[in-house]
């Protein structure tokens, strides 16, 4: 729960900044909210403000958005085995709120429980999406009076949370190698070709390097684990467990 609140603080702080930036970029309040509702991806939304104000053609903005958000393919693929037995409609709805933060909160939850927790997934997204949109509105309507999140150090919340959750997922050598190589590749490619490509390259190659580590070690668990007890199950979505713990 505390981890989720940390994410909420991060989303709120940057939601305020996004709202303010959108106003300064000449977006109407409906246009600003449309971005948050239909795109729901902070980096792409911030980028769009800068690109629109610079007069970049829409086709280029859409292309860049696709590239920036390609990392969601990895999140979706990682959650897919856990949710494979759910209905298509619920999965389709869940996909729309699959953000960095939702993924970071729910994957450890699923792994801890040893099964999918759909109410937990929605609760995780509730910690992120409504605060993000409310903060957008507050930032748009009164952002000038809000203290600078950068000065308060709130810009470090997101990377610290991502790193902390990655560490929490490390239960063996394979995860350790996947995380280490993922970070190294992301930085190397990111410095050469931009952050979006770096994240995707790290997210693709890190796990590949992890697979090269021979054998399984104690602590490895999840949908790929050999034991049946580690596989996600169809039953048991108990809202009393998981994030509410």
């Amino acid at each position, binding site marked *: 729960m505390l981890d989720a609140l940390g994410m909420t603080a991060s989303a709120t702080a940057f939601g305020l900044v996004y709202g303010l930036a959108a106003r300064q970029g000449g977006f109407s309040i409906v246009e600003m909210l449309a971005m948050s509702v239909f795109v729901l991806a902070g980096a792409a939304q911030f980028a769009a403000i800068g690109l629109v104000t610079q007069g970049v053609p829409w086709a280029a903005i859409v292309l860049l958005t696709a590239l920036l958000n390609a990392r969601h*393919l990895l999140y979706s693929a990682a959650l897919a*085995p856990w949710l494979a037995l759910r209905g298509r409609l619920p999965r389709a709805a869940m996909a729309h709120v699959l953000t960095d933060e939702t993924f970071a909160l729910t994957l450890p939850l699923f792994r801890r429980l040893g099964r999918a927790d759909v109410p937990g997934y929605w609760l995780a997204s509730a910690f992120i999406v409504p605060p993000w949109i409310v903060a957008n509105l507050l930032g748009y309507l009164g952002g000038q009076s809000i203290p600078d999140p950068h000065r308060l*150090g709130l810009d470090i919340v997101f*990377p610290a949370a991502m790193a902390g959750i990655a560490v*929490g997922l490390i239960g063996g050598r*394979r995860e350790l190698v996947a995380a280490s190589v993922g970070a190294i590749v992301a930085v190397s490619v990111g410095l050469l070709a931009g952050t979006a490509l770096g994240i995707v390259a790290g997210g693709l190659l890190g796990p590949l390097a992890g697979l090269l580590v021979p054998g399984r070690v104690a602590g490895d668990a999840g949908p790929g684990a050999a034991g049946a007890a580690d596989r996600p199950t169809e039953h048991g979505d108990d809202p009393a467990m998981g994030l509410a713990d």
Partner: protein
Amino acid sequence: MSLDLVLLALLMGAVTYPSRAVPLLAPGVERLPPIALEYLRLVGPGVLAALAAVNVVVVGTGGSAPTGPHPVEILAVLAAVVVVRWRHSVFLGIVVAVVIVALTRALLPT
């Protein structure tokens, strides 16, 4: 009130949603070979570490040019990692990182 950019938002959403939905909706994911499932299991730590590293070492999100390493932010994230490993609390790690960065910026304004 301008509504022109609502169409742009819809287009941006249209290219974002498939990346979120296609793997989740693809049939037969549960029947993937064990090696593929193991790969997917490792995507979590791999991509989250990549996100964290890029955000403190590369920065320049949104397609802007990379700005290079940020030592204080790197130190803060490393401190958070140590705290999370030691205390098993991501929240505590976040608090430590924020305090380090906020104090440094207050004491050493650029």
